[in-house]
């Protein structure tokens, strides 16, 4: 393949991604329990209200969640230099939940934005701890990193469950752990735009993240400010994780599956593939939400559950069909 055709392939995938996303957004606006009443050829005021208060925010929330979580996933994979990690499998989500649980327990009247900030700080500490652990693992054993991440996350998660059980707050955990969009209304999801903004911000440092993924010596040789890139990455991942946990709840596997699919076809040059990662993340989460809305109509299945089923299957396929050395 020549560079020119690689370029036009990138452009074609941008276009396909944008078309598919627009199409799904359109579908999402018109699928749901409430019928949109039509007045003549146009929607009447009631329908407009449903659209603006419920359907539009819900669609935006699904796209923002999917995009920002996929971006957080690929950034984490580059910083850890391992394909098989994401915030949800390395303790970052559990750490965010711990912060959120503690603030809900100790100061329940804290405004939501402050709760989010505390959850983000807690996620930051949790992810920092995992990075310190991961650094000590031999790079020749790529599967060790996700396994240690699962154990680390499991330990934090156990602490979270213990505290929640003691304080009789387990139902909160259930909400934070299963991402679902049926509760999204205008006025209750807007924090997610911040997650979207973080993902956009990450795009400006795309080259730096790609270089960090080449390893420390390549980064130093190219004069990369390693600490700065690490800090930006940590901030992006922990903010996105905390924002999603606070507003929607965890959608498992998005950060893991989406970057792996994209990498397979387009490689890891973030400057070219970050828009694709974000787009595909939005598409898959939105599609999961739409499926969740129609599969047992008029009841709903959480998007996180739908994505978990498909995501786990896709991830197993990626693991098994990939040569072992491609870590």
């Amino acid at each position: 393949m020549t560079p020119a055709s690689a370029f036009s392939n990138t452009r074609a995938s941008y276009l396909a991604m944008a078309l598919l996303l627009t199409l799904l957004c359109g579908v999402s606006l018109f699928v749901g329990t409430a019928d949109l009443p039509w007045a003549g050829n146009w929607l009447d005021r009631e329908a407009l209200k449903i659209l603006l208060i419920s359907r539009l925010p819900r669609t935006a929330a699904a796209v923002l969640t999917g995009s920002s979580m996929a971006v957080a996933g690929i950034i984490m994979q580059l910083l850890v230099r391992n394909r098989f990690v994401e915030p949800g499998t390395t303790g970052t989500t559990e750490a965010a939940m711990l912060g959120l649980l503690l603030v809900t327990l100790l100061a329940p009247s804290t405004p939501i934005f402050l709760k989010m900030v505390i959850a983000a700080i807690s996620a930051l500490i949790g992810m920092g701890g995992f990075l310190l652990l991961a650094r000590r693992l031999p790079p020749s054993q790529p599967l060790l990193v996700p396994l240690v991440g699962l154990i680390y996350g499991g330990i934090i998660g156990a602490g979270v469950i213990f505290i929640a059980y003691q304080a009789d707050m387990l139902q909160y955990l259930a909400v934070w752990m299963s991402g679902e969009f049926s509760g999204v209304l205008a006025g209750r999801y807007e924090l997610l735009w911040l997650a979207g903004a973080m993902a956009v911000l990450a795009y400006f440092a795309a080259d730096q993240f790609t270089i960090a993924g080449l390893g420390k010596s390549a980064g130093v040789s190219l004069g990369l400010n390693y600490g700065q890139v690490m800090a930006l990455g940590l901030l992006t991942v922990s903010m996105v994780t905390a924002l999603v946990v606070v507003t929607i709840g965890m959608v498992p596997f998005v950060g893991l599956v989406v970057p792996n699919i994209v990498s397979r076809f387009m490689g890891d040059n973030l400057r070219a593939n970050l828009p694709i990662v974000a787009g595909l993340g939005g598409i898959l989460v939105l599609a999961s939400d739409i499926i969740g809305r129609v599969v047992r109509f008029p009841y709903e299945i959480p998007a996180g559950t739908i994505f978990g089923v498909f995501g786990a299957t896709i991830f197993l396929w990626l693991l098994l069909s990939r040569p072992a050395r491609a870590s």
Partner: protein
Amino acid sequence: MISIRDVNHNIGSARILKDINLDIPRAGATAIIGPNGAGKSTLLNLVARLQPLQTGSISIDGQDVGKTPTAQIAKALAIVSQQNFVASRLRVRDLVGFGRWPHHRGRMGPEDHEAVDQALAAFDLLSFQSRFLDELSGGQQQRAFVAMGFAQGTDWLLLDEPLNNLDMFHARALMKRVHGVSRSGAAGGRQVLMVVHEINYVAAWADHVVALREGEVALQGAPEEILTSAALSGLYEMDIQVSEHQGRPLVLHHV
């Protein structure tokens, strides 16, 4: 010239480098040789600021490595470390393109594309420039990383055991290319500083040799002076015969 002054380096209680005072001249290709554990890679890493200096100072053509901003050193010196594994799936052309990052820090300009083309051509990578790194053999990957260092366009190119894991064919081809870029010409004469174990590659391709032993500079000079039976036998503590082949030393260390 790279000047190394009073450099000591300890790891725990082990003294890796002892009072190194060394000037590496702009001689073309300089090879650092010595037995295992002599401190060769540590010295190279210190020059390339991959590890912090514990004592002493190192300067590259007058720029102090410890005090100059890392982004500025990136325009004077490039290092290619040993690649144990490659986690990223980049196309060869993109990888080599990242060698230009210190110069543009954003979008590549026309002169960056030209430098990438030159590097791809110098290391015979044009035919795989659109392949992903994980679709290449170990030797091709190694070549791609050296080409990235070359594309960085620095006066100094540091190579840490570039021949590791290469077979005879690829080792010779890589040394030939490295030797080529150390000669002035269309590609510009680069100063190459490399750690090499295979002594006969040093004999054939190096212009200057620095021999380390137990953390100290044992010998330095032209290959014909260093690669003698007496000097090498002392350096490696084994009986080594040196013969001659086409005017270059031929070291018989394996029999």
